[in-house]
């Protein structure tokens, strides 16, 4: 029973990873860009949500209404930050000779943003973890001896809706078709009438939105935020994305859940200290044996970097 409970917990944890992994996989799949600001945006949304709530923003609202609105503002900050990142990574990308390290410019810029944003938050709020004043995470639901925490169940539903919505958007909407055209061939997309300058920011808005939601859900579920909270989640989400296959939406979903399960089961059987080695070991093995992951497309991410 304890084991089944761990599996349930693993699924719950996995759903947070899924959201962040989807953000990673979108940017890689469409723009061939490993965006290292993603974990920072996740942290930024949660920290800003916390600080808005702590300042009593939005003004004058009482407890049950205050924190969801504060979190919504946090998400808005994450989206805004993501658009700033877009300005400095993709807008200014001018490859001159097409050699290997010049293609890494957006990646390197995103590492720069990771340092700036995380440390600014640290300067503003200190390095300590803060208690998030949301709903008590202890509201539990007991079904057949298994415990489900209600906020987590809600999170799971929200994540499922996000993923389904995104899948629909990519497949059926005009923007989705534009994005897929860019993923296929950026030059040809321009010729076909896709306005790259308007469509690319959409990827970054989605990235900010996904990370913001994931950060908010994390804050609500675990009741704690800190400037470091993105690092661990980001690593696990990257692992999930690679496992599922770079650029694959459903791969990121499956990969995120699998990583959540591996983590919980590793803790159950071997203890918390071994998680790092097993998760990353699984990732390294995937890269060596089957780099395209479970559902990935062979061509994505191979471009020179």
């Amino acid at each position, binding site marked *: 029973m304890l084991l089944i409970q761990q599996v349930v917990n693993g699924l719950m944890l996995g759903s947070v990873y899924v959201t962040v992994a989807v953000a990673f996989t979108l940017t890689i799949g469409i723009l061939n860009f490993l965006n290292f600001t993603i974990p920072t945006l996740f942290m930024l949304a949660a920290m800003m949500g916390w600080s808005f709530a702590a300042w009593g923003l939005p003004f004058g609202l009482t407890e049950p209404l205050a924190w969801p609105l504060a979190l919504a503002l946090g998400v808005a900050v994450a989206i805004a930050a993501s658009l700033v990142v877009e300005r400095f990574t993709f807008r200014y990308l001018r490859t001159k000779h097409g050699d290997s390290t*010049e293609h*890494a410019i957006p990646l*390197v810029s995103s590492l720069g943003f990771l340092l700036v944003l995380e*440390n600014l938050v640290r300067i503003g709020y200190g390095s300590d973890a803060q208690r998030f004043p949301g709903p008590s995470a202890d509201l539990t639901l007991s079904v057949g001896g298994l415990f489900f925490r209600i906020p987590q169940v809600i999170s799971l539903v929200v994540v499922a809706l996000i993923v389904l919505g995104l899948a629909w958007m990519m497949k059926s909407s005009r923007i989705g078709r534009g994005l897929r055209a860019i993923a296929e061939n950026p030059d040809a997309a321009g010729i076909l009438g896709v306005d790259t300058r308007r469509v690319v920011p959409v990827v970054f808005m989605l990235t900010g939105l996904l990370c913001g939601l994931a950060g908010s859900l994390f804050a609500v579920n675990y009741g704690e935020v800190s400037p470091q909270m993105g690092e661990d989640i980001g690593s696990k989400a990257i692992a999930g994305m690679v496992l599922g296959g770079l650029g694959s939406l459903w791969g990121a979903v499956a990969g995120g859940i699998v990583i959540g399960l591996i983590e919980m089961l590793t803790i159950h059987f071997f203890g918390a200290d071994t998680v*790092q080695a097993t998760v990353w070991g699984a990732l390294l093995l995937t*890269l060596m044996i089957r780099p395209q992951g479970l559902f990935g497309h062979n061509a994505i991410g191979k471009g020179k970097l």
Partner: protein
Amino acid sequence: MSGYWTGIVTILAINVVFAYGIYLAVATGQLNLGGAGFQALGAYAAAWLCFELDWSPAWTIAAGTVVAGVIGMGIAIPILRLKGVYLVLGTFAFAEVVAGLILNSETLGGAMGLPVPAYIEWQVPVAAAVACALLVFYLMATRFGLAVRSVHDDDVVADLMGVNVRGVRVAAFALGAALAGLSGGLYAHAFSYVEIQGFNASLSIYVLLYVLLGGAQTAWGPLVGAAFFTLLPEAMRSFLPAAKEAIWTAFGVTGDISPPDESWRFVVLGAAVIAMMVFRPEGLVTRDTFAFPRRRSPAAAPTREAAE
């Protein structure tokens, strides 16, 4: 020298050695985001040999270099089949696995770390940094260096020109891993303690940024990048508190203002990275920085003007 300056010179020398290790991989066009893993291998090999077997620093540091180099070569052969994002992730994952394994190893002290009884003076890292710089400058001036730079520019054509692309990549990566290991060994003895938490993803990121900011085109890059970002925070040590005080005062905050902490140096590093990528993505030092006069035959110069 005062204790303050010996500390700075030591860490600067170690960073230079470390940056040269990552540089060798980057010069072939491979972003190695697993630097901390290789440095940890060198540091722990040296620390363990010193702590358990009582080897002298000369031997432990040499052993750390070899261990990192051999493991680097072992991992390079499968990992360098990966390209682009996959390679970045592969090196990153490798460093995490190394850290994860050391964390769980009782022999290596786990989360507690290992003390390193033998201490080295600042002259040793400095000598090592000078030797590394000379070695890399020499290598980049050889035909091997030519091959390295060709592989960086266009691996398909390099291959058609007869360059053993895979061989060059593996050699550069493994030699770089050895240098990263050397920097780890130096670190262990210079700071008398190793702790796996110090060899984290951030460290891998910093050292890669040193190299890319300095510029990967010439062997000056890592030297300039590491020096700039080791010395810059020191230079700002007096400037930043004054700046903070001025800003706080401007906002009407009075009284005791605590000096800014470590975080500022990373904000500055990150902002510099972003600005560099916008304005000068090739790095601070490029090949055009040095117009080697000896390469242009003086007699030919007028002809060129005429041709234009």
